[in-house]
Structures are given as structure tokens and as C-alpha cells.
């Protein structure tokens, strides 16, 4: 009964707008780890190659930067769509709060700007710049990426723990304090959790490609190096992420207790709360399915079984996620933690063997795990994001503005049509992206299989009618 009333209050635009935002974010997030961390991993490989005069390492760095070129380009456009969606879908939020929390995006914009410039120089500098200059010019790249992440996470954490303003009689924000609005309580934990997640994910995704080749029997130095560098990078950060993840969960417990209640499907505020692994929360507050571990939730939240955990019912039904949303948040949270734990085991296996024996594991099961780790960590990132965003429902600005108040007044039919168009466009773009990546891979594999230096006339001309080779090198006339 109560739910029906609530649904009636929600404008028809909310569902298409939320679906569209969710869809475009889910897809953009796939590219984010590579955007933030692939430059760093590539630079590590590049630096290694330069230092040791290692041709294989430099080849890997060059190939990764070719992938980076395509990936960054797609990321730029899907990211631009997101900034349009702030206006197209949530004009109410930007109109009222834009001047309170928008500045973070300004920092992000500039970080991104710097990143685009540096990536352009790096990608197109391989040929003409001196090797050292080329490497040095690219060194600020990871910092620019971190600056960009700073802006985005500042904005998102403000939506979760908004502050830095007071409300006047009409409910409009006044007395804006920009510093407090950027460094909100959840900002620190969220930022580091996010950055390390990007590092770990990019490392496992990159290493996974070579783990697969290793399993298929391509056990040369090229694959060994392509696997070891990114995997080590990710494995080092995995335990760090475990600690950070644990810490942010506790911060959420303190700063967004209702979200924490949804993450752990806690219905009534109480001490000695059990922990549920998976399971489903019903509208009457009962939990079905799942594995119940007595006391554990209270212990995890406050290190003591008598820690009091706030339940969903501590706030009115209209101010908390629905039970279906809570179940979703609980599942995504558990899946993320589960994947994180498995990745930790994988990283320990690798680390222990490396420290004791100075060698890679030989078990195919290790490499099977490593091959899956990339996909698994992307899944974990998606789950973490769903936990943050759905756990905040029904608020767009926590306890200050509902999603329903922020949504555009454009007819919901237009929104659905646009959503359909966006799906078609994205399927085309991401499908093509995948095809291009696979094509690059098979082209390189073909070139590697032929192997060995060969005279230029043996270059397979028939295969290259449309590359830039027949036009002659670009350098003709380009230099004074």
C-alpha cells in the first residue's frame, strides 16, 4: 500500500532517466580502469625497456600505447556523453547544486585536458622524439589521470555526504564553502578505494591477455614479460585494496548508516547483528536464503559483537532504498568482496612463490585464475559502483534532494526513444571497439608467427592496401 503511494509520487521520467544514466555509466566504467592506470603500467614497461635496452619490453609498450589510443578515444566520447546527461537527465540537480559541487568537475576537466595533451604527445611521439625526451614527457601522465579521478570522486562523494553549504528559507543553498564541499567526509576513503581499484583492474586485465596466451602454449619471453609486469603491479596493490575496502565499508557504516544497512540487509537497528552472505530481504523485513554468520556484522562494523548497527527501518520508508534495491546492493557488495578475496588469494599465491622460489607458478590453474582475474575485477568495479549509487537511493544528493526532484521534465517517451538510440549507438561503438582490438591482436600474432627480421620487399604488400605505407612516410616535406 505504502509502496504504491510512493511509486505514484515518482515522475514517469525517473525510470528511463535512471536506466539511461546507469547504462551509459556501466559502459563507460569498463574503459575507466584502462584510462586511469594503463598509462602508468605502460610507462613502467617502457622505463624497464629503456633501462635494460630490452626490445621486447619496448615492443610491448608500443603495442599497449596503440591500444591506449583507441581506448582513450572511446573513453573521451562516452565521458562527454555523461557530462551532457547531467543537463539532459538531471537538470534539477545541476540547477540547484551546480555551484556547490561543480568545481570538482572543473578540476577533473583540467586534469583530463592535461591527460589528453600528454597522451597525444606520447602516442604520436614514438617516431620522432628522442627516446629519453619521449619517456620524460609522458611521466606526468599518471598524475594527470589521478587529478582527473580526484575531480570525479570529489563530485560523487559530495553527492553521498553533501556539506559545505547552508539552506535558506526557500531551501536553496547559500554560504557555499568550496573546500568543505570538495573534501567531504567520504571523499578520502572513496578516492583511494577507487584509485587502487583502477590500478588493480587495469593490471589484471592486461595480464589476463598474456595469461591466456601462456595457457595456449605461447611461453616465450614476450608473453612472460607481458604477464609479469602488469600482474606484479596488480598483485602488489591487491592487499592494499583489501585494507582500503575494509576501511571504506566502516566509513560508510559511520557516515551513511542507511546505505550500510542496505549493504548488509539490516532491517531493525540492533546489536549482535549477524552477517548474511547473499540472501534476499523481503518487504516485511525477513531474510530468505543466504548464509547467516552470527555476530559477524557487528564485529566487522565495530570490532565488537555488541556494536549497534543501524537498520533500514531507522528512517521512514520514503527515505531509504526499497527492499529490492537493498537486496541488489547487498548482492553487489558481497560479489565485490568475494571477488576481492579471490584476487587476494591469487596475488598471495603469486607473491609467496616469487619470494621463496623466484619463479612464476607452473600450475595451469594459476594461469586460468589469472586469465579470469581481468574480467572478474571489472565485474567487481561495476558491483562497487552499483553499491555506491543504488545504496544512496532514493536520494540523488543524500538527504537533500531526491532523484525524482532532479529529473528532467522532458516527456518520458522522448527519454525512452533516446535511450533506445543510445543503446544502438553504444552496441555499435563497443562492438567495433572489440572487433578492432581482436583484429590488432590477430595482426600482431600473425606478424610474430612469421618472426625474424626480413628484408623490406617481403613485407606482405597484398595485405596492406589501405595502411599508410603506400602513401609514403609522412616525414616527406614535414621537416624543414
Amino acid at each position, binding site marked *: 500500500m505504502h509502496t504504491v503511494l510512493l511509486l505514484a509520487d515518482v515522475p514517469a521520467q525517473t525510470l528511463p532517466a535512471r536506466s539511461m544514466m546507469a547504462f551509459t555509466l556501466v559502459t563507460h566504467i569498463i574503459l575507466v580502469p584502462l584510462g586511469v592506470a594503463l598509462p602508468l603500467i605502460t610507462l613502467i614497461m617502457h622505463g624497464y625497456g629503456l633501462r635494460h635496452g630490452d626490445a621486447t619490453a619496448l615492443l610491448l609498450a*608500443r*603495442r599497449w600505447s596503440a591500444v591506449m*589510443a*583507441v581506448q582513450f*578515444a572511446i573513453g573521451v*566520447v562516452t*565521458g*562527454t556523453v555523461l*557530462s*551532457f546527461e*547531467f*543537463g539532459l537527465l538531471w*537538470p*534539477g540537480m*545541476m*540547477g540547484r547544486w*551546480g*555551484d*556547490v559541487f*561543480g*568545481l570538482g*568537475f*572543473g578540476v577533473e*576537466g*583540467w586534469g*583530463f*585536458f*592535461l591527460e*589528453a*595533451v*600528454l*597522451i*597525444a*604527445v606520447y*602516442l604520436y*611521439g614514438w*617516431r*620522432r622524439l*628522442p*627516446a629519453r625526451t*619521449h619517456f620524460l614527457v609522458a611521466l606526468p601522465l599518471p598524475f594527470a589521470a589521478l587529478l582527473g579521478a580526484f575531480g570525479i570522486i570529489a563530485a560523487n562523494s559530495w553527492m553521498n555526504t553533501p556539506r559545505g553549504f547552508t539552506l535558506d528559507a526557500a531551501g536553496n543553498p547559500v554560504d*557555499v564553502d*568550496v573546500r568543505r564541499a570538495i573534501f567531504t567526509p567520504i571523499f578520502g576513503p572513496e578516492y583511494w578505494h577507487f584509485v587502487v581499484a583502477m590500478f588493480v583492474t587495469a593490471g589484471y586485465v592486461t595480464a589476463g591477455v598474456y595469461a591466456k596466451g601462456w595457457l595456449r602454449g605461447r611461453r616465450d619471453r614476450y608473453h612472460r614479460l607481458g604477464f609479469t609486469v602488469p600482474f606484479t603491479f596488480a598483485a602488489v596493490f591487491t592487499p592494499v585494496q583489501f585494507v582500503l575496502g575494509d576501511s571504506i565499508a566502516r566509513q560508510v557504516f559511520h557516515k551513511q548508516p542507511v546505505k550500510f544497512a542496505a549493504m548488509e540487509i539490516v532491517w531493525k537497528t540492533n546489536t549482535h547483528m549477524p552477517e548474511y552472505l547473499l540472501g534476499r530481504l523481503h518487504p516485511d523485513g525477513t531474510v530468505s536464503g543466504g548464509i547467516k554468520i552470527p555476530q559477524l556484522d557487528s564485529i566487522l562494523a565495530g570490532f565488537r559483537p555488541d556494536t549497534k548497527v543501524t537498520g533500514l527501518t531507522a528512517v521512514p520508508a520514503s527515505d531509504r532504498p526499497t527492499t529490492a534495491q537493498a537486496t541488489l546492493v547487498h548482492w553487489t557488495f558481497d560479489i565485490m568482496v568475494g571477488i576481492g578475496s579471490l584476487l587476494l588469494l591469487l596475488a598471495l599465491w603469486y607473491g609467496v612463490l616469487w619470494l621463496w622460489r623466484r619463479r612464476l607458478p607452473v600450475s595451469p590453474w594459476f594461469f586460468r585464475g589469472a586469465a579470469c582475474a581481468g574480467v572478474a575485477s571489472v565485474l567487481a568495479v561495476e558491483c562497487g559502483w552499483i553499491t555506491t549509487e543504488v545504496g544512496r537511493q532514493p536520494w540523488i544528493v543524500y538527504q537533500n534532494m531526491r532523484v525524482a526532484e532532479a529529473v528532467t*521534465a522532458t516527456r518520458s517517451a*522522448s527519454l525512452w526513444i533516446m535511450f533506445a*538510440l543510445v543503446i544502438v*549507438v553504444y552496441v555499435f561503438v563497443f562492438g*567495433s571497439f572489440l572487433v*578492432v582490438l581482436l*583484429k590488432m591482436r590477430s595482426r*600482431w600474432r600473425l*606478424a*610474430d608467427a612469421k*618472426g625474424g627480421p*626480413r628484408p623490406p620487399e617481403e613485407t606482405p604488400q597484398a595485405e596492406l592496401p*589501405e595502411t*599508410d605505407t603506400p602513401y609514403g612516410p*609522412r616525414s616527406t*616535406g*614535414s621537416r624543414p
Partner: protein
Amino acid sequence: MIAGVVAVVLLLAIAAYACGGGTDYGAGFWDLTAGGAERGKRPRWLIDHAMEPVWEVNNVWLIFALVIMWTGFPVLFQQVFTTMWLPLALAAVGIVLRGAGFALREPVRRLSGRRLYGAVFAVSSLLTPFFFGAAIGGVASGRVTATTTASTDAWANPTSLLFGLLSIAATATLGAVFLAADARRFGAPDLDRYFRRRAFGALAAVAVLAVVALFVTHGDAPHVWHGLTHGVGLVFVIVAALATLATVWLLTRPSGHWSRVTAVGVVASAIIAWGMAQRPYLIPASLTVAEGAGAHTTLRWLVLVTVVALVLVFPAVALLYWMDTHGELEGLTDAELRRDAPSDPS
């Protein structure tokens, strides 16, 4: 006062996007009109090579303009995106298709694939500036207000249509002028002539549309018309006209650096003239700069962030454009991604 400064920054960001992004859209326009696979091969080759290193950077100007808009003038952002829903949504889709089409065309081998991505890239290069122009036309003619919802009239009106066409013509001009100069740099004088001829055509279209615009805005956007024909607005209109004449003169001879400068001058002063003509309004006759401005402290921080960023970003961008126009940047070829490639490609 501080709101005025931020408004000027916003205007400059829009001008920068119109010039940087506009050049890219123009390149797409000439890609579309280059003809069949065989005839259009050389112009398309030039377009690919000229655009390659910088197009993402050009795109970032747009994001920067959006950020200033929602942080500095949240109400303006809300009203524009509510009223201009359809053109802006379509422009966003166009940006995705265009960027993806261009980025993906490069690594694709087969002719059919290149055709598909090339067509996607070219068509969206045409539509996107049109919709941006249409949205600006809606703002200039005061059709964006607090109470209007998304309607066809907001962007399908004489001023919007004209501004849309003017955007296409202006981007085509920029594209042709830059490509002509690039052709000379790449040692292809025939393409220099090819693109200078096209730049003439596009510039003529800009001039005709600009004159028509003066007549149309007289009735349809009286505030902007008054601003364009008086005071600072008029000064920039005159600058734009002089830059047009200078561009025409420079286009009669083999391209050098200066034709780019004057072409950018045409577009940038036109945008600035429009902005000055709107004073003191963000949206003529309904929302002034002072009314639309965000919190005072935020504006101060926005200016600070802009200044700091200029110190950081400006040298980087200048370096990139310099390296690009001096041929220091070029893409990796397949040969360098093979295992037998020399370890140090330089």
C-alpha cells in the same frame, strides 16, 4: 563583477571549442564531400593525418565549457538543457558516433569497414555543429526561459536554423583552411589548391549567411541584433569582417601560417561578437549574468582553478599544437608494432 569575468571565460571556452572542435568538424565535412573511394583517397589521407594527434584535445574544450556553465551559471545550464533537450541530445549522440567513427576507422583495414566508419564520422561531423548552432540560436533569440519546456519551436526557428547553417559553414571554412596549410606541410601542393578552392566556397557561404543573419535577427532576436550593430559587438563584427577579407586575400596564394590565424580570427570574433551583443544577459531579456551566477565563493574558486590550470595546461597545449604543426608527431605504423621492428624507432 566576478560573474562577468566567469562569463567571459565561458565565452572564450566556447570560442576555443568553436575553433578547435570546429576545425575537426570541418575536416569531417570535407571527408563527406571528398567523393568516392578512389577520388577521395588523397584528401581523406590528408584529413586522417592532419586530425590524428589533436582531436581529443579539441574535444576537451567542450567539456570545459560545460563545466564552467554548470558551476558558474547553474540556472543557465538547467534552462538550456531543459529547453534545448533534443538538439543537445542529438549533438551528444553525434559526438559519440563521430569520435568512435574516427578512432575506429584508423585501425580498420578492409575498405568496406573504412567506408562504414568513415560515413559515420562524416555525417555526424555535419549534424553535431548544426545542433550546437541551433541551440545557440535558441539562446540568442531568447527562446530559452525558466518556464519553457522542450519544444520544437525552441530550436526550429529562423535564428536557430540560420545559426546551425552558419556553424556548418564556419567549420567547413576552418577545416579547409587548416587542411590546405597541412597539405603544404606534407608536401602535397595539389591538395593545397584543392582545399583552398573549397575554403573560398565555404567562406563565401559564411559571408552570405552572416548577411542573412543580420536581417533575420533584426526581427527574431532584436536584443542580439542591437548588440551586433552597436558598441563592442559592432567592433567584433568589424574585426570578423576584416579577418574574412584577410583570409580571402591569403587564400589566393600558397598557404602559409597566416591563413589559419585569420580564419580562426573570423570564427572567434564572430562568437565573441555574439557574446558581447548579449550583454548584460546570459539569455536575452530573461536572465542576466548577475541573476544566473552561482555562489560568489564558487565563482572566485572557479577563476582560481582556471588561472592555475592555465599555468599548467597552456604550456602543454601550446607544446602539442607546436609539435603537431611542426610534424614532430606521427602515429605508429604496423612495421613498428612487429616484433622485428628496431627497438628504438627514432
